[in-house]
């Protein structure tokens, strides 16, 4: 490069758009999914990711006519990456997690489930009949934590 008088360019904060999007994405699973309020709807994560996306777009827009091809490609990659992560997150939250069998397949009110005996985590046999005379809350969950 034959640049004369190379002045140190100011750091462009909008360069951090993609890292911010990534932070918003990961922190949902690592932190915010643990609390019902921020899990049911990503009140924290979606805004963070949208701000990151906006920054990535801003950085790209500023650098769309940059002299260095490298800079132009870099800014495009940051924006593309951000868009992909936000799209993936939106798919997960607004579509994928709704993919469930019909609720009507479940045992209806007033019905009695077929008898079964299963081992609990301490190896003890447990049957539903053990709980006659009491209310019993049964929580099924997906497993593979």
């Amino acid at each position, binding site marked *: 490069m034959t640049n004369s008088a190379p002045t140190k360019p100011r750091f462009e904060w909008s360069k951090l758009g993609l890292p911010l999007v990534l932070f918003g994405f990961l922190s949902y699973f690592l932190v915010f*999914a643990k609390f*019902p309020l921020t*899990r*049911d709807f990503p009140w924290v994560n979606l805004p963070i990711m949208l701000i990151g996306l906006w920054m990535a777009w801003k950085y790209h827009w500023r650098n769309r006519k940059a002299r260095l091809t490298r800079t132009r490609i870099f800014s495009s990659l940051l924006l593309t990456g951000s868009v992909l992560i936000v799209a993936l997150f939106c798919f997960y*939250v607004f579509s994928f*997690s*709704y993919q*469930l*069998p019909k*609720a009507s*397949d*479940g*045992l*209806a*009110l*007033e*019905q*009695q*489930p*077929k*008898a*079964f*005996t*299963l*081992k*609990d*985590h*301490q*190896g*003890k046999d*447990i049957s*539903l*009949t053990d*709980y*006659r*005379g*009491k*209310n*019993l*809350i*049964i*929580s*099924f*969950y*997906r*497993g*593979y*934590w």
Partner: protein
Amino acid sequence: MQSNQTEFDTRNTEILGISVDTREDSAKIATKLGLTYPILSDPDFQAIDAFGVRHKEGMMGKDIARPAVFILNPEGRVAWSNLTDNWRVRVTPEVLIEALDSLN
């Protein structure tokens, strides 16, 4: 749910958790979360099918249980149930306590 144990005790109510996880995995979860109620391991879908909550190929091609909560009354019949339409959104203990109160 664990932190509301006394609320459930006073309502003559016990709790069970059920998934396809192995006993070892369930034990790990119970320790990690400090659970005192039994976690049942149902790899053959005995309970899961008895309640009609099998999610075919729900986890990377493998069958699992869909998230669902049932309350059985003292006669062993379904008195209340919640089959969420979104597996990120679950029933809270407060909802269950309210449901128990409405049953009596």
